[in-house]
């Protein structure tokens, strides 16, 4: 099946070229960071995690969201999703791969990363996060690959693969729960110290992840032979709607607890994010505009998703989803991690400004993830095309022309 990845149209090769460009640039930026130290990032003694760990957090959600296709199909026999579960599984592989890369580029001593394995520490949530992420990536790769192979050969999916599929469903929930525990179990970080963190993570993940998948499927409809029925996409849009409402609801619960209790520690980060904080005659509020944009966009997407005419419109839905991805990214990929560090444990404020090397490395990692997803999707779509062409009796010339196009 691998051969499918090296045969493609001009568009396909251009896309790979762009991805390799992003990866190459990111790699050079990483060499720079590796040589000079993480001081080349915007992180500091006070904001000790920045955009890398933020992306890890966001992408764990994207990875987990593959389950929103797998679960309805395998547990509820929702047949419409049968054709697209493979896309969810392969996107999960790419997303987890990016998560691992983001951890790697964030390490001060990446050469020592195997200390995680050499000195396993079950008391550390990071240890468990590494375990669940790696297993989840393996599960999805094996499941996706095996199902595709069986499809190709016309075989029945073996029982052990079915077992893995059923394991992968709770496992998807586990990866985002454990990632939430990275934050939710730390004393002295009030913004993160909340029992609803895992649930909120899952809600935003099940909104943003399927939204990205749906956008990819819409793009595939244009750029490839892979046509997902609009009705199937409409089903996915409903899941996104519920998840997005839950996400905003959970956020409002946080706001209530912080402000009705009136406990300053619980309020300060909210103030920093939404009004800015004054400290020693200086106003700090770098993220305020972005957070308001995120909040307004979140409510906008809910309106656009709840009203059936807009949700079911092929014109409106893609715009809604782009807005949704942007809104949840600001919330989780920017505000959550960085905001949690402000104010610092000594009630002082240091802000975070992302640097150019950091941006280039981040784009490079996204490039790597996109490459993984592209190659896997190319193989999956290639196999499907072959199957669709097989039973039909077509002229040799037509067959050649069709094969050439892809």
């Amino acid at each position, binding site marked *: 099946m691998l051969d499918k990845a090296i045969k493609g149209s001009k568009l396909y090769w251009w896309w790979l070229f762009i991805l390799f460009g992003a990866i190459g640039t990111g790699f050079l930026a990483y060499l720079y960071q590796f040589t000079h*130290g*993480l*001081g080349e990032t915007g992180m500091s003694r006070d904001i000790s995690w920045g955009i890398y760990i933020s992306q890890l957090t966001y992408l764990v959600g994207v990875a987990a969201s593959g389950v929103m296709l797998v679960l309805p199909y395998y547990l509820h026999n929702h047949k419409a999703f049968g054709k697209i579960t493979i896309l969810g599984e392969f996107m999960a592989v790419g997303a987890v791969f990016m998560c691992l890369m983001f951890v790697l580029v964030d390490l*001060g001593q990446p050469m020592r990363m195997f200390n995680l394995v050499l000195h396993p*520490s079950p008391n550390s949530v990071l240890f468990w996060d590494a375990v669940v992420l790696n297993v989840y990536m393996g599960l999805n790769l094996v499941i996706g690959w095996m199902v595709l192979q069986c499809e190709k050969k016309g075989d029945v999916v073996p029982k052990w693969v079915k077992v893995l599929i059923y394991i992968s469903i709770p496992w998807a929930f586990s990866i985002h729960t454990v990632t939430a525990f990275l934050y939710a*179990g730390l*004393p002295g*970080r009030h913004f993160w110290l909340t029992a609803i963190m895992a649930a909120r993570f899952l809600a935003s993940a099940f909104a943003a992840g399927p939204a990205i998948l749906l956008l990819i499927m819409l793009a595939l409809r244009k750029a490839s032979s892979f046509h997902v029925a609009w009705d199937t996409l409409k089903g996915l849009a409903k899941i996104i709607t519920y998840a997005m409402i839950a996400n905003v609801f959970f956020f409002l619960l946080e706001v209530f607890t912080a402000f009705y209790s009136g406990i300053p520690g619980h309020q300060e980060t909210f103030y920093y994010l939404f009004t800015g904080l004054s400290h020693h005659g200086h106003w700090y509020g770098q993220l305020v505009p972005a957070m308001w944009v995120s909040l307004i966009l979140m409510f906008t997407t809910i309106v656009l998703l709840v009203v059936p005419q807009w949700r079911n419109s092929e014109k409106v839905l893609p715009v809604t989803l782009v807005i949704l991805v942007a809104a949840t990214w600001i919330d989780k990929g920017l505000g959550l991690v960085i905001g949690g560090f402000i104010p610092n444990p000594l009630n002082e404020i*240091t802000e975070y400004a992302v640097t150019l090397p950091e941006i280039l490395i981040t784009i490079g990692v996204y490039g790597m993830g996109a490459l993984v997803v592209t190659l896997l999707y190319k193989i999956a779509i290639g196999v499907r095309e072959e199957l669709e062409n097989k039973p039909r009796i077509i002229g040799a010339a037509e067959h050649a022309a069709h094969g050439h196009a892809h």
Partner: protein
Amino acid sequence: MSATRREFLKIAGIAAAAGAAATPAFASFIPGNILWPRGESKRDEAYTAKRWAMVIDLAKLDQKVVETVREACHAAHNVPDFLKVAGMGAGEAKRSEIKWIWPAKYESAFPNDMNEHMSANVTQRPVLVMCNHCDNPSCVRVCPTKATFQRADGLVLMDYHRCIGCRFCMAACPYGSRSFNWYDPRDAKDPKTLVGGRAVDPGFPTRTKGVVEKCNFCAERLARGEAPACVAACKNNEMVFGDLSDPESPARRLLRERYSVRRKPEMGTGPQVYYVI
């Protein structure tokens, strides 16, 4: 005050006698709970305790004391000084700073203990903050490689060669006591000099970029039979170090006699740096 002075003389006497006798059997009677008012209390074998703790007398701290203490600690542990780097912007220097012990404002050290109309004598004095060597350290709990660990005598220590630089411990510490080497702490051109111009003390390892570090309660000096550098630098018992398990230790006596506070005890970490007011 006079009590602690007497205590010192008594202990110094015992220590001198022990040194003279120099038999292992006798040496075991030397209390490990020694109070060090000066740096000269040195002995030939390691100081040990069941539970090391620090008591800091806030009433005695002033700008001069805290600067002396910080300098003594940072010199003893090869801590670079990014604030002194020419050409580095103030913002970047502050972001890259390494701090083992440093003066903080009262409101920063004790954000939950600020009352209206408090005595300026309390709120305006510098507070020395450092690693609290917690009983229940959250940094140790979260470390994925056991690079930071807790010793039986309570010291929370770091293995700089095992640390992968994930900085989970920095997020977990509710005291901001941990620093990360964002850059190489050693001068790029001269390996015998640290960033900021201080000469490297070969008696303590320098660190590499990409690892976390913090106060170690001078584990290396205790092992040599020396007082912690900060305590040794104090001229007037501003900092008292001792074995909390011994009710007769000067540290315990100070806690018995004076009102004490700790930083954020509500976090459940069990901080072992006490402040007497």
